[in-house]
């Protein structure tokens, strides 16, 4: 058909239901991208903290401010989610939790555990 | 706009088991073969066959093709042609092995061979103990076979016209078939396919009845096309009602359930088949079991609030057997009857299932018509599968013989086309007036204005068929039915579409299908009215006995003037002795 290129496509993501495992997956991707974007700043902090006592103090200070705390929380959440989701993926690779019900439950667990763990870790490290 | 044309060596209409098995034979040679299907090939109704395919492989119990032949002749109530039946039962064995080589995932026995289950009407040693002859891929045998055949055709690069609807055959003044006019459903555009040989493999026509196990697509397209081309339909009065459809819905519960040990009970919990068929019980032939169920319900022993069905007990088999051998049934029961077969019995009632009759052919798939005192082949036309009548099923088909029929005769037709092509190297000249007639059938639906809707006429027709050409048939009921059906046929010219758009207009397809349903349905009702005996699926309370003296003959219905003709049953097999008619008890 010559008209095929003009045909409409239904891809309204607000009208397509994403199952819990899909939600977990897209958060996995988003957290990965966030940490990638945050990498230069993390390396800057590492460099700064190792540059000398002043740098170390500056680095410690910068993560204790309001913006810094929010940043640390986002990183901790991202790390928790990405890590837990990653473990889930590795287990699925070896056929553990690949059945539908189990996959749903573990996905939900990861989505819930991410921010909770993120919050705890933020409190713990700061 | 000029009509678009394509030329092929062979044209196959229908992409179920018969069409695809014919196509694969051709595609494996250098013939140019086109397969036209109104749905994507794996949506063809072969996909719904559950139980299996019969072949005397003797993997489980002793067996040979001669026993299989006896059961088939007996099952046909001695109306089947014994030469064709011998051919089929012999060919069954290599056919099943070929399927296995083609990738069909048959269930297996511990020794690695193909699993075979018990099915109704199958015996050892000419009517002795129950045989195990039905080769199965769990309860999805048709699905497994159809997909494998499609896959083989993809491998062989068969040319598919998916979602094209066949309008009519094109023929010349000598009656030779030159191809067909088809319509691309997606665009609504007609296309003329010229072919040296045309194979009709359009499947069944269960949609003529309101309650049926058949798919929406089973509208008798091929049989109606043949009728319009002046070809008669044979033995159309023999329509099989499968005993175990889900009550009120029609979805099939395979005979394999009874083969695995399931049985029927009435409202008193009585295993009533013991009364109707003391030996075979629930595995008696399908016509016997269907009549028994209808009788139970008529005599007030039905189950449910309306006492309108019986129960199929499976729960005693245990979860392992059910989920291993009958997983699809458990699923269907849950979805459509709200019943888990592992714990509860399934509500069942006979459902319109299979037409034994069809386009008359010889065992090579060639369409044959009466000519003078004998018969003649229609040049360039073949038919195979449910739309054809070789006659291997006679008055009643055995479970597991339909997949066998489509495969054996689809293959035989394909092979004969190959031979035919060696002699006929050129296309015959096109006959323009025939093309115009076919085009008129398409353009007729462009008429605008008020009229009866397709849906209304269709609903009324199917209801009338159910009421007047069902399981039990008296002169009175059927005569009234034929008049009603003819009256409905007369209304066809007044039917109008309100939607005249081109692109994927399913209303137009349904209108074309309606014409096919009407032609095929009337063939059934008319042939039934005329046959004054009870034989196989054709059961007449006013003529309760089989009448071999007057009626051991095939009926032929012609559309023109609703004319009937008859021809003798071929009782002489190819190599063995004739099985003479005997009383049929199970």
């Amino acid at each position, binding site marked *: 058909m010559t008209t*095929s290129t003009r045909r409409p496509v239904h891809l309204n993501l607000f009208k*397509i239901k994403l199952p819990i495992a899909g939600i977990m997956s897209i958060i996995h991707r988003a957290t990965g991208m966030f940490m990638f974007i945050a990498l230069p700043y993390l390396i800057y902090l590492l460099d700064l903290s190792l540059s000398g006592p002043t740098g170390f103090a500056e680095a410690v200070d910068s993560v204790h401010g309001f913006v810094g705390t929010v940043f640390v929380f986002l990183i901790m959440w991202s790390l928790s989610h990405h890590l837990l989701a990653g473990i889930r993926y590795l287990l699925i690779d*070896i*056929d553990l939790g690949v059945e539908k019900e189990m996959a749903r439950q573990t996905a939900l667990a990861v989505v819930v555990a991410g921010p909770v763990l993120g919050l705890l870790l933020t409190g713990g490290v700061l | 706009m000029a009509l678009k044309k394509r030329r092929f060596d062979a044209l196959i209409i229908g992409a179920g088991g018969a069409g695809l098995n014919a196509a694969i034979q051709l595609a494996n040679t250098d013939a140019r073969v086109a397969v036209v299907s109104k*749905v994507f090939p794996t949506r063809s109704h072969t996909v719904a066959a559950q139980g299996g395919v019969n072949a005397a492989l003797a993997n489980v119990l002793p067996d040979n093709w001669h026993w299989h032949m006896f059961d088939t002749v007996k099952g046909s109530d001695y109306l089947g042609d014994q030469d064709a039946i011998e051919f089929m039962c012999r060919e069954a064995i290599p056919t099943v092995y070929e399927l296995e080589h*083609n990738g069909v995932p048959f*269930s297996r026995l511990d020794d690695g061979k193909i699993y075979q289950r018990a099915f109704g009407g199958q015996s050892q040693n000419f009517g002795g103990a129950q045989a195990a002859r039905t080769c199965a891929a769990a309860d999805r045998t048709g699905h497994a076979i159809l997909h494998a055949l499609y896959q083989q055709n993809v491998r062989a690069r068969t040319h598919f016209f998916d979602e094209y609807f066949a309008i009519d055959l094109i023929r010349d003044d000598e009656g030779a078939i030159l191809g067909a006019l088809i319509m691309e459903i997606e665009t609504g555009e007609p296309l003329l396919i010229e072919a040296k040989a045309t194979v009709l493999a359009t499947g069944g026509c269960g949609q003529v009845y309101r309650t049926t196990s058949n798919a929406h697509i089973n509208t008798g397209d091929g049989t109606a096309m043949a009728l319009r081309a002046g070809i008669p339909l044979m033995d159309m009065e023999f329509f099989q009602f499968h005993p175990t459809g889900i009550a009120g819905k029609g979805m099939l519960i395979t005979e394999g359930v009874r083969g695995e040990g399931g049985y029927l009970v009435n409202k008193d919990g009585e295993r009533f088949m013991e009364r109707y068929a003391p030996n075979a019980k629930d595995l008696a032939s399908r016509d016997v079991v269907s009549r028994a169920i209808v009788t139970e319900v008529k005599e007030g022993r039905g189950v449910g609030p309306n006492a309108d069905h019986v129960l199929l007990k499976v729960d005693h088999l245990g979860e392992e057997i059910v989920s291993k051998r009958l997983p699809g049934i458990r699923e269907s029961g849950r*979805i459509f009857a709200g019943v888990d077969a592992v714990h509860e019995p399934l509500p069942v009632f006979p459902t319109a299932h299979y037409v034994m009759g069809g386009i008359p052919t010889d065992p090579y798939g060639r369409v044959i018509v009466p000519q003078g005192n004998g018969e003649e082949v229609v040049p360039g036309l073949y038919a195979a599968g449910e739309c054809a009548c070789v006659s291997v099923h006679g008055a009643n088909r055995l479970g597991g013989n339909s997949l066998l029929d489509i495969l054996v005769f689809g293959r035989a037709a394909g092979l004969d086309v190959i031979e035919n092509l060696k002699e006929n190297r050129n296309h015959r000249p096109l006959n323009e007036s025939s093309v115009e007639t076919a085009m008129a059938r398409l353009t007729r639906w462009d008429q605008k204005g008020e009229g009866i809707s397709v849906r209304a006429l269709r609903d009324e027709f199917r209801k009338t068929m159910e009421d007047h050409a069902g399981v039990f048939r008296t002169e009175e009921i059927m005569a009234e039915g034929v008049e009603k059906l003819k009256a409905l046929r007369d209304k066809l010219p007044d039917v109008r579409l309100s939607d005249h758009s081109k*692109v*994927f207009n399913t209303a137009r397809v349904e209108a074309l299908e309606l014409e096919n349903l009407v032609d095929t349905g009337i063939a059934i009702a008319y042939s039934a009215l005329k046959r004054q005996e009870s034989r196989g699926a054709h059961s007449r309370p006013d003529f309760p006995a089989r009448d071999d003296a007057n009626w051991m003959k095939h009926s032929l219905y012609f559309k023109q003037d609703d004319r009937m003709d008859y021809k003798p049953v071929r009782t002489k097999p190819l190599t063995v002795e004739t099985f003479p008619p005997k009383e049929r008890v199970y």
Partner: protein
Amino acid sequence: MKFLVSRYNPDSDAAPYMQEFEVEVPRGMMLRDALLDIKRQDESFSFRHSCGEGVCGSDGVNVNGTNKLACITPVSELKEPIEVRPFPGRPIIRDLVVDMTQFYQQYKAVKPWVVRNDPMPEQEILQSPQERDKLDGLYECILCGCCSTSCPSFWWNPEKFHGPQALLTAWRFLADTRDQATDERLDALEGPYKLFRCHTIMNCVEVCPKGLNPTKAIGHIKALMLKNSV
């Protein structure tokens, strides 16, 4: 009950829109019955359907955001208003009918047939029940397309990513002890696209009307590939 169905006729509509229908819902009604009722009200409404019992795979649609087979989806399980749209990501031909060509192409691309180099035996190729069991959960696929059209990776790369359906089929033949083309099949799946666009999102598993698990099949392909390359 209130139904909202997606309508689009290329002859007259610039874009798809939702149309409201009221359907009376008796007990046990399937979504396909409801769509047929809508067609009764408006003959021009188009959708594919055939067997009505979930084996032919014709009537996959997107209902309230999830891909389902209409004929085995009880209306009672759906939340009102019931919104019915065509499969996501596929070009719409008309109303609920989409162009599945790409999906079939991907299926054909995995060479879905048993390849046997040894000469065929006169009888069946032997296969133990345990070997045959490996095909369970694979061969039952009905090509309805629910899985692939719910897969984000397939939405973004339908030309290059095989999609869950075709990969399930690929594993169906890799797992068949009769097949002798393991290396060729694995080689053909290499590269970043055909197989490795799968990110284990598992939308496919979520929607398969036959309860099959393409994710598991894909995992088995990857594992076999890894095993054969070290």
